[in-house]
């Protein structure tokens, strides 16, 4: 989904099984590259190995970048930075937003009111605008980047978790657990969570795409991960001038992002459809 929007069109696409299989394979490939980046890349992440903007050769398969670093190595290391950071941020936003959302759903009352209004207020601003504001205030370091994006994303997770939790919280078995005198976290962990796992897992995939593209966009704007770390958004920015010489190199990182986003989206579609209709 588009980064700037933060919302996504409702989907209605059916995905054939073989497409879903390919997509899972693609995701596995990205995971493999992310984990084994140091072994796979021919050169170091920030190692200067040649002249700036050398064309592709047997030595540098994708040529070199604006500072003479190997593009392929940067692309592989970039997977680690871009995908890894996005995954960490998504997990963080699920821990914050998911916990608060389920708490609001089960507890209800004033806590729910306050949390919901805070989330509404934060969501009244477009995500990119809020992120730019907060990054100005806290600076563009790694810690503030992670915190700011996790915070923005947590508001969306909160909404979804609360809605899913509300459906479950009205069930008799939750009422029974309440009457048994179980505590809030025991109810959330043992009664609610197992029943909202499916929608939250699907949401995780979609939130990951959002965070991933969001970080890439901020890096492209020069406000995300800071150099010399290799990340895909920043690599496009650094080498963009090559486009004017009909070189495709700067577009590889962007293409890598697009492929992963499509793969995750289609997989989520498939999983959701399977969950809705197990026979298909």
């Amino acid at each position, binding site marked *: *989904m*588009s*980064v*700037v*929007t933060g*919302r*996504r*069109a*409702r*989907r*209605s*696409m059916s995905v054939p099984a073989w497409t879903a299989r390919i997509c899972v394979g693609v995701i596995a490939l990205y995971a493999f590259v992310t984990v084994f980046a140091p072994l796979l890349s021919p050169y170091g992440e920030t190692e200067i190995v040649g002249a700036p903007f050398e064309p592709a050769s047997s030595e540098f398969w994708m040529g070199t970048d604006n500072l003479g670093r190997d593009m392929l190595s940067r692309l592989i290391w970039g997977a680690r930075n871009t995908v890894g950071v996005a995954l960490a941020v998504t997990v963080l936003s699920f821990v914050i937003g998911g916990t608060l959302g389920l708490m609001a759903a089960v507890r209800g009352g004033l806590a729910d009111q306050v949390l919901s209004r805070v989330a509404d*207020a*934060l969501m*009244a*601003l*477009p995500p*990119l*605008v809020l992120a*730019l*504001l*907060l*990054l*100005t*205030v*806290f*600076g*563009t370091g790694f810690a503030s980047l992670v915190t700011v994006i996790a915070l923005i994303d947590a508001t969306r997770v909160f909404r979804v978790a609360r809605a899913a939790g509300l459906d479950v919280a009205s069930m008799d078995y939750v009422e029974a657990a309440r009457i048994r005198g179980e505590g809030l976290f025991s109810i959330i962990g043992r009664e609610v969570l197992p029943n909202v796992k499916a929608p939250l897992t699907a949401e995780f995939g979609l939130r990951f*795409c959002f965070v991933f*593209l969001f970080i*890439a*966009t901020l890096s*492209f*704007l*020069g*406000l995300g991960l800071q150099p010399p770390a290799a990340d895909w*958004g920043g690599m*496009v920015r650094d080498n*963009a001038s090559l*486009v*004017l*010489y*009909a070189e*495709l190199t*700067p*577009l590889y990182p*962007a*293409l890598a*992002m*697009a492929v992963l*986003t*499509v793969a995750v*989206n*289609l997989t989520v579609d498939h999983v959701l459809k399977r969950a809705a209709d197990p026979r298909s």
Partner: protein
Amino acid sequence: MGALILRRIALALLALVLISLVVFASVELLPGDFADVILGQSATPEAVAALRQGLGLDEPAVGRYLGWVSGALQGDFGQSLASGRAVSELIGGRLVNTGFLAAYAAIVAVPLSVTLGAVAALYQSSFADRVINILSLGFISLPEFFVGYVLILVFAVNLGVLPSLALLTPEMSFGEMLVRTLLPAMTLVMVVTGHMMRMTRTALVDILSRPYIEMAELKGVGRARIVFWHALPNAVGPIANVIAINLAYLVVGVVVVEVVFVYPGIGQLFVDSVSSRDLPVVQACCLIFASVYIILNLLADVAQLLSNPRLRQPK
């Protein structure tokens, strides 16, 4: 109904006040003192004191907020920290440029995506529907800057028919401006069309699956009459809603596209000011973007209310 719309407008105003508070409070959130942050460690105490006074940091927060808001309402956003010029002066011309680009993209994107969305909905699971679906998923998944650079590569570099940079000069004719900004506008169109098409399709599919449409089909009413006479009146509201929501996206999508094409708009200024931590400019940009976003969302809701009498009934 008037009361409902008034209530919705009141809510939007409340949201604007809340946002102005958030934007203002961002200065208060700064770790330590803003003056120290800007001037750095080596600043003399006199310089810090002078800047604090210049920013009005030595006054109470409530008074500063009221002063800032009343200034903003009159178009006075204070002075840029980076250049010392009035923020309104920096923003003025750029705001017009950004408005031009957004309007250009909207005028192309709205009819295009509504038509394509309608085609996809009317001929469900046909070849056209599949192509439209795949295209929209593609545009939604691609980063905005990717679309922009591919367009530059194809039209500016390979074909050489359009300029790659969207530089504007005051003496340009309107036609020339349209050509100059065609690539950024097309990028925005593609990005926003993906969403708009899908949402239009969903809204129409929802209406076409209602029992009264099936009834009309069973009565033997012709297809064109079903679409224009039975379905369209009910679809106007959802579609207007979709358009307003997507125009709100477009206003923000402009930020990335302006950076790609080095377009002299407010989005570029926004990003530059974040890098240099020029807070007054960032605050002004935030307020402007947020206001437009909220107003368009308000319009979306009002369109929904006007078109669907059921929503006007108190529950």
